[in-house]
């Protein structure tokens, strides 16, 4: 597989909505490349007939009884937000 480049790191950072400095991009490319080169070791194993394990417990959907329960109070939840307005979360304009 091709080695990870600064462009790939920039692309992943864009997907993750994470700002990186040029210095961070540079050092991270080298460090992530080291790790991914090591991870390539997994290709020594033939896993064609192996099912993936995302989760060790034999649990799929877990339901609770469908009844009304108390939820967190709006004031408590909004109290943590960096900016609020009239009982709502406030963010910069989304649509121009």
């Amino acid at each position: 597989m091709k080695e990870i480049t600064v462009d790939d790191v920039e692309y992943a950072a864009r997907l993750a909505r994470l700002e990186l400095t040029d210095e961070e991009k540079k050092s991270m490319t080298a460090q992530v490349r080291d790790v991914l080169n090591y991870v390539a070791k997994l290709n020594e194993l033939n896993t064609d007939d192996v099912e993936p394990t995302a989760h060790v417990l034999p649990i799929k959907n877990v339901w609770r009884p469908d009844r009304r329960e108390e939820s967190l109070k709006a004031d408590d939840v909004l109290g943590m937000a960096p900016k609020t307005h009239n009982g709502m979360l406030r963010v910069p304009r989304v649509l121009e």
Partner: protein
Amino acid sequence: MRLSFSSARDIVRMVRGKEVSAKDVVEEVLDAISRIDPQVKAYLRVDEEGALKQAEEVDRRLARGEEIGSLGGLPVTLKDIFCVRGEETTCASKILVGFYSPYNATIIEKLRDNGAIFVGRTNMDEFAMGSTTENSAFGVTRNPWDLERVPGGSSGGSAAAVAAREAIVALGSDTGGSIRQPASFCGCVGIKPTYGRVSRYGLVAYASSLDQIGNFGRDVYDVAMVLRVLAGHDMKDSTSADIEAPDYAAALDEEIRELKIGIPKEYFGEGLSAEVRAAIEKAIKALESLGAITVEVSLPHTEYAIAAYYIIASAEASSNLARYDGVQYGHRTKSHRDLEEMYTKSKGEGFGAEVKRRIIMGTYALSSGYYDAYYLKALKVRTLIKRDFEEALKKVDCLITPVSPTPAFKIGEKVNDPLTMYLSDIYTISCNLAGLPGISIPCGFDSEGMPISFQLLGQPFGEGTILRIGHAYQQVTDFHKRVPPVADRAASA
């Protein structure tokens, strides 16, 4: 009397018998923190006022003849990763500074209902990503046995506090060894229960298919006593198992004769330091002399565990940490032109280097074109690793292994070399991939005086067995009773 040196078992007994008050206990622990923590720096925040209030409440209930709970009067120290209503939880990250949780983690409710008293929050690697606690945004915690060395991580503050006698018991979380490895580096006992054993409601998530809450103590009895309170089903955590938790402490004295302990040969190969190997071989002899039967077993896919783990953990982390976008809580950047820039700058300013690295690695491994090659491949290898354990555990009751290839190393030694750091997690990581319980038990010291531990890996929900073996071992050894110099000096000052 030095109550901060006492076991949890003795403290609970003495408070219940009114030999000491809960307030006496808390005052002594707070005093120990004030003497020792300036050197060890295990705590991020200490809640003196709150702890004394809680202690007075326990004392009042006791005076009125009310039930105070199985942990009544016991000070419990928390890794800074649990949500407590109205209190700050930072995960040692700048992005969560100022986050005051609107609810309690389930384990907080359980501990409080059982009379535990919360004294403070301990340092950790940011969002539990790391093996040394050096990735904290708020400074480095020091190993109580040598202040120039790391305490391990990510629950390094909790392990160091218990070992340094500035906490009686402590809680942590373990995604790839984050309880067992610092327990080993600091010379205390640490257990990571089976995945699903303890509710994770209110635990800040790192890698959700691997994270598990567990606890530290200076001996196995204390760990067993607290684990019983933590364990059990919770409707609020759909991954918590509906299996009743036994009274672990009550069953500790059962014999270990005839129990079969497997020695996985892959865990004793290249890379294991000679002194660690020697200490564990001696522990194996001690367990044999107690009547346990040891047999060699094989976990053939061990060498692939780290590669699979770092893909899976990073992928899950990149998804879990997407929530820190500066909208609902946490850090929001001061200057931004639009919504997108608010996200990117808030995260860029709020997260530290290791967290950013894992977000990038995880996002990359999940991105179109790489998903099959990295993420899906890692999940398939996880199946192979899990099968290895299933095969081995058909033949034996549990496994004995090292915890870490070496004892604690120097601060700064590996911090700029993530791959080397990751490779040191080789003995603890598979346990999380397979969802098994693991415990780390002190079994010696190297020539420089640093603690060494062995690890027991049990059957799913077989915490009782590994606790029992650890307890039997501690009845014939005294490594867990040794006191690090920093605590000794503070006590005699």
